[in-house]
């Protein structure tokens, strides 16, 4: 059961992201804030940290390609960035303490970096013209807050699920 739960959750998060994106942008006091849901990559980072880096990179590649083809129509953007972020997360874990607070902050920082790289890319190819300051205020900050909140609520559940899988695998091996 647990074996299939990990990919199932990933697929669910992948499908949920665009639905939640429909609630964005929100308007507060005349200012417009974009909330970009990055739940899938947060989950993949957790897999990379608590389970296996290689597995996370594979998932990252698979969902990155889907994301590119279905939403972005620029193939090769997310399909590189997703595995790369998973790889970096898996490498970082070797030097840090695996406490939930630490991993949560690492994940959020990685998502912020991802968002920034995407901004740079879209700025380069003229898909967006907004200046850096506006990007930081109306996109990056609300996105970080929203995703951090999401991870604070569901991070422990991710860890619980991944731990269950790790334990199950250990039992299979022994």
């Amino acid at each position, binding site marked *: 059961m647990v074996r299939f739960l990990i990919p199932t959750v990933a697929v669910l998060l992948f499908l949920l992201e665009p*639905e939640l994106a429909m609630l964005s942008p929100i308007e507060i006091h005349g200012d417009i804030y974009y909330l970009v849901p990055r739940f899938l990559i947060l989950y993949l980072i957790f897999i990379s940290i608590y389970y296996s880096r290689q597995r996370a990179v594979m998932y990252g590649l698979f969902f990155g390609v889907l994301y590119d083809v*279905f939403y972005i129509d620029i*193939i090769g953007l997310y399909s590189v960035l997703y595995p790369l972020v998973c790889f970096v997360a898996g490498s970082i874990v070797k030097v840090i303490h695996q406490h939930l607070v630490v991993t949560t902050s690492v994940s959020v920082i990685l998502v912020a970096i991802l968002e920034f790289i995407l901004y740079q890319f879209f700025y380069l190819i003229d898909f967006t013209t907004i200046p850096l300051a506006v990007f930081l205020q109306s996109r990056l900050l609300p996105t970080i807050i929203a995703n951090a909140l999401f991870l604070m609520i569901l991070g422990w559940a991710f860890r619980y699920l991944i731990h269950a899988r790790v334990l199950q695998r250990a039992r299979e091996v022994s």
Partner: protein
Amino acid sequence: MPHFFFNKKLILLLVGMIFLVALISFSLRDRTNATLPEQIIKDTVGFAQSIVAKPANYVTGIFNNIDSLLNTYEENKRLKARLEDFAVVQAEATDLKSQNQKLQDLLDKKDSLREFDPIHATVIARNPDQWEEKIILNRGSSHGVKTNMAVMTAQGLIGKIILVTPFTSEVELLYTNNPNYRVSAMVLGEKEAYGLIEGFDKERNELIMKRINASLTVKKGEQVISSGLGGIFPKGVPIGEITEVSTDDYGLTKMVYVKPSADFSILEHVVIAKRSSITIDGSDGDATNQDLTNPQKADEEETN
């Protein structure tokens, strides 16, 4: 031989980079058709997405209902004020409609830019990273959707179809950064003023309508609708209301800011408008240089 392996990795990385750049530049070209593997992926994900979209739409519907419940009192006051005008306007509209029909019959004029066949569609996804303003619908070429068709809600125009697969289609919304995105529109003032919707002001959150003849007067508060002269969209789809009038960069033509009448933030059910009269064949159309106004003649020419 660690040195050798290092080189091999480096070469692999380089080849990968070249492949990546090639792939990105290939997909960045203006494409109107998806390749077969893309179509398969899009349709499969679209199918799964439409299953998830149903409960999600239901939940957002509940939130919307709560939201509108809170505004009920205000809205009711406003609507009551309008209701009295409404009966008069409706009677006038029916009268005008029948009169118009009679006159058209008299003239034997069958084609109208206004007419379109609606295709109802549900929004199954919105581009989650929101850099490009795109939504994905659950209707595709197998339902008769083609690229460049207008997409609207009950309130007004929201965008046009840019990519079609057998079971899904992609809509580029009106507020996009794409400089090639233009909609031929007209202002319903004392005298109709024609112009083009070109671009979107991010700070004001309003559309920009340019190239209006400087000798015509357009005022704040006047309605803007699609003119149908672009050759693709039907005529008479509401776009918005003028909020500010100014002149363009060179001072030769007028430029107005238009507040869109459609609500872009929560889109659920949309209508794809398939124009009944002939659509043009320019760079936005099929670009085959066929004579579409005389189909028989064109066919003959082709056979010759």
